[in-house]
């Protein structure tokens, strides 16, 4: 995954969301349609073209106290309407490390 931190031009190829990390504890959050943040991907506002993406990102960047490092990430929307992360990086951000916790080893 090319790190989205190097995201410069905004061009989206499909449904996308804005994601970031919550400022006070760092957990993964998604920008909602109600101008807030949610830890649940299914609450995320979905954007479908570059203008929408730009607007959602600008609005997210402005909420600097809520979350940090916002960027646009791809999602996939299943036939049932369920939103899934669009790549491995976002999958890992959503469901956690793929390696098991050493604490249980």
């Amino acid at each position, binding site marked *: *995954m*090319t*790190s989205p*931190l190097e995201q410069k031009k905004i061009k989206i190829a499909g449904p996308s969301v804005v994601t970031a*990390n919550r*400022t*006070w*504890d*760092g*957990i*993964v959050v998604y920008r909602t349609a109600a101008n807030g943040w949610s830890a649940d991907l299914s609450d995320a506002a979905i954007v479908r073209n570059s203008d929408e993406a730009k607007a959602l990102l600008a609005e997210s960047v402005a909420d*600097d*106290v809520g979350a*940090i*490092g916002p960027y646009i990430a791809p999602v996939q929307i299943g036939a049932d309407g369920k939103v899934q992360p669009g*790549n*491995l*990086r976002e999958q*890992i*951000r959503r469901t*956690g*490390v*793929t*390696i098991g*916790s*050493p*604490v249980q*080893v």
Partner: protein
Amino acid sequence: MYAYDEIDRTLVNERVSEFRDQVKRRLSGELTEDEFKMLRLQNGVYLQLHAYMFRVAIPYGTLASNQLRQLAHVARKYDRGYGHFTTRQNIQFNWIKLAELPDALADLAEVGIHAMQTSGNNMRNVTSDQWAGVAPGEIEDPRIWSELIRQHTTLHPEFSFLPRKFKIAITASDHDRAAIKIHDIGLRLIKNEKGETGFEVLVGGGLGRTPFIAKTIKHFVHGRDILSYIEAILRVYNQYGRRDNIYKARIKILVHELGIEKFSREVEDEWQHIRNSSLQIDDEVIEDIRSRFTYPAYEKLPHMPDELRQAAADPGFEAWRKNSVAPHKNQGYSIVTISLKPIGAPPGDATAEQMDALADLADKYSFGEIRVGHEQNLALPHVAKRDLPALWKALDKLGLATPNVNLITDIIACPGLDYCSLANARSIPIAQELTRRFSNHELANLIGRLHINISGCINACGHHHVGHIGILGVEKNGEEVYQITIGGRADENAALGNLIGPGVKFDEVADVVEDIVEAYLALRERPEELFMDTVKRLGVEPFKERVYATR
């Protein structure tokens, strides 16, 4: 151990209250992230994929048992019950909340640990040989000089806003365990013909996008002149270093572009101006630092105690002793390496329970001292040989007696895409799979010394360029792809590995490594010919053929 003085303690405590205030202002919105970012980085706080990451300094890899216990406490109270020991001789916590960080820092300050110089474009923590002060044949404890440089550079304005991060490593042994040739400055402690202590100075090593092996800039710099000489190097760097381009900002690029001859002339000129200044080190200063390193009151012990003779009948013990126990400079004692590479586990991780138990074992068997090595293992530096069997039993119970030090399953791996926001691909699961493939101890022993190093992106935190087998994760069309190199090494004969061919997919990496190892076993002239020697003798070609013939 090193006893910090009042100045250090005050500094560390002040730093905590300063950061507490900064965090408060950040959370209230008074500081924006842009304003806060540099402040948090100065305190070791990064943002990773899932959370903040907190990097704690372990200067030159020396830890006291009470400090290790406090790290366990931080892991338990503020994190998820474990920490990750890194190639930079420090420890990272992966799940810390920003709001709780000041408390974690305050708890660490109680035992004199902090996170200064663990990130940012400054002089980073000086790293050294994890066997410093106990390795047979070393010129002198290199930590004395590491500490001198640490004191001189900590928060020094001239070293706090460099063009880029700056890393110094020091060794005092013939065998380089500190990988000095891949650091911005590498120092090798030596004696000249007159018997005076000084340094061979190397400069311009580094990995990342543009890897270079450091070159010798001066064969001997007297100990008393080492600060002025380093200062001269840094001044030349500060003057010419490429602040405009992050990819060209490290000193290795400057040394490469100017050429070592021109670079060394510039340094020499600068040095002549400043060498007889206040930077010249008085003997008393060194003496003072030397006196703060205390060594245990070693007993006179037999070379071969009965306990050891009896335990030799136990093949489990013998396998571990042969692998993980090294000679100590005092008769009757050993240095014990503790593998943080159990089969199937993430390299370098230790749980809070393991840290606590190790702290107890250090108290019982190693005069309360623990070391952290850049290979992501720990060591107990002063174990009486008679205690080895008991120590082994205790370590084994904790899952810390895997006899794989320096073997193929002693893998260095960066956090990769499981944690790191810069990653292109995962590193840790590759390491886990490889340890399972080579879990058979007889096989690993038959293969002999072989270092596999894995990075999840070109930044090379997992030292892949200098792995005997190096694995670099990249991304191709949204998929994880791994480039494999062979023939790298990080020791006194440091070299960069050569690519064997096109990248391979996640699922194929372990198969490819097996092929490389099979080729080596078939090609080596005798069992003592190590992997890296076979590669040196034959080059990449036969390995390439073996790997790609069927792919």
